[in-house]
């Protein structure tokens, strides 16, 4: 049995290197903006992302929501164009302007046809959105009201309630504890000046990472990167993010909710993006609860006992150690049974680590499935942003399978033992079994 697995694995290794992944070109503009570029002419389209150190972890205590609203309002009015003119010009050329917003990072993304006229119009809008937003007062008031309504709605949903409670319990006073869109009470008080100030302080060239993927030449990519960043504000000094307190006390919150299911979350501080334990924890988590239908949690909770439709574990690697989370939903009357089971699976995994057989299977999947991670322009663009933003080595993708291959069961056991203490985790149960709600 063992031999068979090893042979299969060797087979995979022989296959993988034949295909050269995306060839990343990387440079810095005069103003210090990092640019990552992959030239690819297979499709007549272009994807661009501009990333800033401007996520919700930069919100000041008691003033949460400013970072998120700033990011959200970027495309709601720019110099020379109001929000409707802007949206029409994008739609006229079939361009898609989007973005993402997390604790560390605020990003603006663009997908456009690469033909000259379309590309020109789309990039013109993106350049203004990134560098010349006007944050009109009336738009801000309106969008704030919409955000407040959405936050109130989310406070009725078990997924949001549990997520918020878990972040608070795990991160305490650290900014990672805050909801990315802010606290309702704080958002209601946001004034335009705070948004303008946040933008001027944080949306700066030296903080920006530009990712470009698709149908342009290197020379064109250099011009695009400049065009998107050369008029950025001067900015201020980015405050240093407080370290996350790694050891937390065990807590358990049971929150009443009329839902039919209990939403159960367990969490603790996990790992940072540049963590030396990254690959051991990543591969280990695949075995514990990350590997779709074949993880231990899935096997015990769903396949063996039919207790849940979805059960998972994951690390969210960030600048500082982000969340390690286990989650599931189950009928109220079996919530305690499911929670006990999950705890025992975790405890066993941390105490004993994975088996050699499990590790081989995990490597087969992660290494053999590597090409699926970079099989589209969209996915490659996301990796470019990630590598640039978190200052991962330029060879990150080239090294990925090799790093996974080197992980041993002893390293996983050791890393989990040091990083995940099942006796010191936060537990949140929303829609807790009747009678026990606190």
């Amino acid at each position, binding site marked *: 049995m063992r031999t068979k697995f090893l042979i299969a694995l060797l087979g995979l290794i022989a*296959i993988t290197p*034949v*295909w050269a992944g995306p060839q990343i070109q990387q440079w810095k503009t005069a103003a210090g903006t990092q640019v990552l570029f992959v030239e690819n002419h*297979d*499709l*007549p*389209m272009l994807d661009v992302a501009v990333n800033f150190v401007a996520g919700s972890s930069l919100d000041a205590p008691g003033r949460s929501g400013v970072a998120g609203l700033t990011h959200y309002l970027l495309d709601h009015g720019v110099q020379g164009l109001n*929000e*409707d*003119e*802007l*949206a*029409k010009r*994008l*739609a*006229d*050329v*079939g361009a*898609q302007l989007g973005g993402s917003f997390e604790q560390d990072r605020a990003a603006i993304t663009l*997908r456009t*046809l690469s033909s000259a006229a379309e590309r020109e119009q789309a990039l013109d809008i993106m350049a203004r959105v990134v560098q010349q937003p006007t944050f009109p007062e009336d738009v801000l008031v309106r969008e704030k*009201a919409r955000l407040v*309504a*959405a936050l*109130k*709605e989310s*406070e*009725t949903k*078990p997924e949001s309630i549990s997520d918020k409670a878990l972040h608070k319990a795990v991160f305490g006073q650290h900014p990672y504890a805050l909801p990315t869109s802010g606290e309702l009470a704080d958002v209601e008080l946001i004034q335009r000046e705070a948004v303008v100030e946040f933008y001027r302080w944080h949306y700066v060239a030296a903080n920006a990472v530009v990712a470009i993927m698709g149908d342009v030449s290197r020379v064109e990519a250099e011009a695009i990167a400049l065009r998107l960043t050369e008029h950025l504000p001067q900015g201020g000094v980015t405050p240093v993010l407080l370290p996350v307190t790694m050891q937390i006390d065990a807590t358990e919150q049971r929150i009443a909710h*009329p*839902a039919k*299911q209990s939403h159960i979350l367990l969490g603790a501080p996990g790992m940072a993006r540049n963590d030396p334990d990254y690959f051991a924890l990543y591969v280990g988590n695949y075995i514990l609860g990350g590997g*779709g*239908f*074949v993880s231990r949690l899935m*096997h015990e909770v*769903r*396949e*063996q*006992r*039919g*207790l*849940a*439709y979805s059960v998972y574990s994951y690390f969210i690697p960030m600048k500082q150690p982000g969340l390690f989370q286990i989650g599931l*939903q189950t009928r109220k009357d079996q919530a305690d049974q499911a929670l006990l089971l999950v705890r025992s699976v975790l405890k066993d995994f941390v105490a004993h680590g994975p088996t050699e057989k499990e590790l081989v*299977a995990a490597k*087969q*999947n992660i*290494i*053999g*499935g*590597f*090409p*699926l991670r*970079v*099989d*589209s*322009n*969209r996915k490659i663009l996301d990796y470019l942003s990630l590598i640039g933003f978190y200052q991962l080595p330029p060879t990150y993708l080239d090294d990925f399978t090799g790093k996974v291959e080197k992980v041993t069961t002893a390293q996983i056991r050791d890393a989990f033992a040091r990083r995940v203490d099942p006796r010191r985790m936060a537990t949140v149960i929303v*829609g807790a079994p009747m009678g026990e709600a606190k």
Partner: protein
Amino acid sequence: MNLRFPLMLLMAWGVQTAQAEVFEQRLANGLKVIVKEDHRAPVLVQQVWYRAGSMDERTGTTGVAHVLEHMMFKGTKTVPVGEFSRRIAAAGGRENAFTSYDYTAYFQQLHKSRLPLAMQLESDRMQNLNLSDAEFAKEIKVVMEERRMRTDDDAHAMLQERMLATVFQEHPYHSPVIGWMNDLENLSAGDARAWYQRWYVPNNAVLVVAGDVKAKEIFALAQRYYGAIPARALPVRKNYLESEQLGMKRLVVKAPAELPYLEMAYHAPVLRDAEHDWKPYALEVLAGVLDGNESARLNQALVREQQLASSVGAGYDSVSRGPGLFTLTGTPSEGRTVEELEAGLRLQVAKLVNEGVSEEELRRVKAQVTANEVYQRDSVFYQAMQIGQLESVGLSYKDIPLMLKGIQAVTAEQVVEVARELLKDDNLTVAVLDPQPLSGKSRRTVPAGGFHAH
């Protein structure tokens, strides 16, 4: 219904240049094999589509199509429980399955060298499924948890479910894909076995492979793995119709939530003849004119100018086996009511009908369709999905360029005409979510909509 619906749909129409790269062959047992070559990365996707969805179910056994989808992962005569997923995972693959009203589909994404394994496993479970009572008893509990999560505990999904049950009184779209809870509670392994026997045959399936492959080799592999599976006669398919609606219908759903929600659903035709139909294309453009971008009519007027709504949407899906719907949706702003929002939406429709649609708006929607046709080629999975969907509803991948042409040919007058003809009260169901405080004893849920992943 979420706002991305219309855009996703527009994306489903495209691939002007696809013809050259799509190849088709039918095996002697009736299995249709379609290959889409895309050599950008050394990966592929295999999808098997069965033309059997929840609309083929009968009263009392709703949900069985989806339950069977779950059971398809529970082993065969030669592949033990859990082994399917383990082998695909060990090959570096990702896999899942989904059930809709119209079809049930299974897929694996893999390195291009691993197709034989995927074909071996997929063809095995097409004929040798081991549907044991013990595994069924466990899995039906999982499905009930899935229903609780997606529908029972999500207010908008609950509204959607109850609304469709009101819109369709005869057609099987009346019942949710995931099934009514009482039916799930009473479902037996025997029901699942009967479903499998009835529909899981090569002559009721379409195999789609897309990615870094050569069509000729795929046809040979398909013959090798699927070729020997015997065909079986399929039951006669009933042509279900929904009788003409004889007046407006209204319903209220009470569920825990903060904000009310409004959905207005009008019966609408769907695409049957991609070359000659024009109304589905006009409806598609109508949805784009109303809600195709941030500055489109509904958002600009109701969210931005009047601030009557915190969100609005328009949706239409032209690709389905059964009858279609054109929907208008929205959440009123704080302090405004669903009645005001309904009046506001009606006013926008009336304005369009009375004042017409500008050439500029028309051009904009068509430009988005053209661009999306390129963008969607970035996803191998999506390209296969588009083919499988069309084939499963009785259309063909060959219709794709016709559909794109159809959209481009839509005139402003046609957009107005379909709005005038279809968006009228006798054709309308209005559903309102009446939000209940959490302290109440009711419950909440999510759009069970089209798909249920395994």
